[in-house]
């Protein structure tokens, strides 16, 4: 082979290699110690059943909104963020494949995403092994940050909220007996139900009924009839998004009138629009009423850019990207270990959940807010709140 051809071949091969690499390599430096481009991997469930996609889609919108805002504002100087969204379709196998691609082939700089806990638990360890910081946006289950020290979460494990709030709520309701309705085909919601049951039983609240529902159902009268027969003082919900509204709708049909303790899914206009949701008390970490941190700005920006009010899922996605960008800025580097350290030491992050940071367990230092559905909207709840049906 002539020398010139050999050099051209090497140059082409090197070019292909560079082009094939994702992450911060191709764009060079931005002059601020940071690369010109940082790629954030976003594995999200944005297709499949609507009950899952209706969570993943707003998460993507929230993340993209934050990326656009960070890039246009020059928050990271000349460094630009690129969001690489991959639809993992509520499939653990696809989530594992996606994380393999992101960590080996694309070599993304950080990962902000995940819609379902089981998908993360299958795929998350790949990112931990690759040493890539991960910020999960909407995982309500436990065992997330236990995967490793590169894993952070925006939405805390719901059981940590229930542990603090449920005793206060159940005492205010003067409940002596409880019934539980939960998604039996989700290990996550089933575990949440078990946890809440243990907490309430520890307070002397006897369990009189436990009814599981599945995603295949359109009618819950069977379970509601069994609960009505048990005649509980309070009905506790731990179901998947999309099932809350239907349950609220069918409670009245079942002739059931009982105090209700919801889950985070009740913080949705679709649920609160149903009259059966009236007076339900639930605990969450995001609400439009939060007036601290970046939340007021987020509410305005989201409405302005997307012409609709945001959901909690969009808020979590938005915070996830801002957390990553803030950590990069604080670290002065995109080096994964330095970004991880910056995330771990984050204290006064201005987010949509208010002003918070990460605790030793790499979960957000937020305590949750108690809300009650009243007149089709969520209002702050305290033990002295009143509500009539």
């Amino acid at each position: 082979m002539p020398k010139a051809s050999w050099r051209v071949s090497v140059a082409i091969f090197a070019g292909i290699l560079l082009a094939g690499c994702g992450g911060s390599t191709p764009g060079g430096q931005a002059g601020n110690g940071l690369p010109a481009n940082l790629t954030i991997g976003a594995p999200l469930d944005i297709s499949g059943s609507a009950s899952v996609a209706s969570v993943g889609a707003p998460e993507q919108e929230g993340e993209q909104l934050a990326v656009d805002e960070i890039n246009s504002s020059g928050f990271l100087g000349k460094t630009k963020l690129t969001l690489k969204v991959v639809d993992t379709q509520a499939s653990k196998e696809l989530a594992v494949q996606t994380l393999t691609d992101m960590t080996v082939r694309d070599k993304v700089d950080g990962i902000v995403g995940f819609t379902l806990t089981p998908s993360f638990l299958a795929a998350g360890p790949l990112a931990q092994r690759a040493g890539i910081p991960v910020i999960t946006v909407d995982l309500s289950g436990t065992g997330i940050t236990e995967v490793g020290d590169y894993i952070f979460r925006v939405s805390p494990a719901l059981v940590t909220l229930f542990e603090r709030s449920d005793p206060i709520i159940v005492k205010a309701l003067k409940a002596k007996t409880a019934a539980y309705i939960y998604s039996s085909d989700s290990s996550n919601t089933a575990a949440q139900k078990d946890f809440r049951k243990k907490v309430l039983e520890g307070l002397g609240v006897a369990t009189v009924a436990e009814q599981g529902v599945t995603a295949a159902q359109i009618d819950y009268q069977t379970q509601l009839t069994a609960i009505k027969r048990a005649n509980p003082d309070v009905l506790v919900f731990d179901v998947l998004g999309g099932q809350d509204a239907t349950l609220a709708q069918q409670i009245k049909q079942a002739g059931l009138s009982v105090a209700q303790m919801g889950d985070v899914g009740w913080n949705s206009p679709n649920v609160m629009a149903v009259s059966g949701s009236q007076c339900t008390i639930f605990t969450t970490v995001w609400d439009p009423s939060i007036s601290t941190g970046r939340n007021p700005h987020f509410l305005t920006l989201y409405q302005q850019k997307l012409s609709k009010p945001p959901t909690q899922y969009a808020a979590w996605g938005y915070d996830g990207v801002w957390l990553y960008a803030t950590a990069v800025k604080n670290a002065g580097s995109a080096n994964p270990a330095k970004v991880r350290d910056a995330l771990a030491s984050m204290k006064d992050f201005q987010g949509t959940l208010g002003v918070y940071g990460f605790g030793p367990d790499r979960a957000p230092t937020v305590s949750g807010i108690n809300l009650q559905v009243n007149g089709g909207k969520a209002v702050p709840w305290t033990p002295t709140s009143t509500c009539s049906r």
Partner: protein
Amino acid sequence: MSYFAQQLVNGIALGSVFAVLALGVSLVWGVLDVLNFSHAQFMTWGVFGTAFGISHGLPVVVAIVVGMLTGATLAVIVEEVVITPLKRRAHVDASSIVVATIGVAIVLETVIKKLTHSELRSFTSEGFPSGSIPVAGISIGLLPLAIFLTSVVVMVALALWLARTRLGRELRTVAYSRERAEIVGINPRTSYVIAFVISGALAALAGTFVGAETALISYSSGDGLLLITFAAVVIGGMGSIPGAVLGGLVLGIGQVLTAAFISQSVSDVLAFGLMVIVLLVRPTGLLRRQAVSRA
């Protein structure tokens, strides 16, 4: 006893929804011998049509008619653009048409998914019957009662139409034999279009019932119900109008009683277990001998 009776009532209410869905599928399956996987999309698009009508201030009954027109129109488009052209080709077999309807279903679902931004949408229950009435110690939901009565009216009307009107009789003749129908001067195309119009309208009606029951609609509203509908048709007997209703009721009651007294997990697979048993023991379905179309 009252607990059992209450669950039985719950089963009849659920079965009524399955019955209305099964009626439309049975008609097309019986007349055209087409297993139409896009039927669930007629349901989804239909309920969005109803929601559109309600959101624009139409009375609920008028909005339901808008939804049924949406479902019927979509069904005719699918029949004219996809199914009939495929059936004209001599080398195209039934499985090719099934595959084509799966493709149509995916396209229709993708379109409505884009149009609705993958969102779950509220379906207002205002204007629909709500609450319940106690009867002999049993709570009867007014919405399920309305659905049950509607499904009975639809079944009777459809059966009478098929038996006593010229178009109905022509439809049955085409179902029995397209060639013989043509010999006696019946245009099978007209019968095909009518079958799809009714099928699409009934799918939309059932979709509206489901929307009112669940308070939510989405691009995947009909997905989970399609296979249950097919099971109801197989159990009742393909092409049989009373069979479709019976199949729906058997499944509804069976699902509810299984969930109440065994487990929800068993209930979820009951439809398919029953379908297999019927296919093995009585492949023509429970009421095939009384079929109005092809028997």
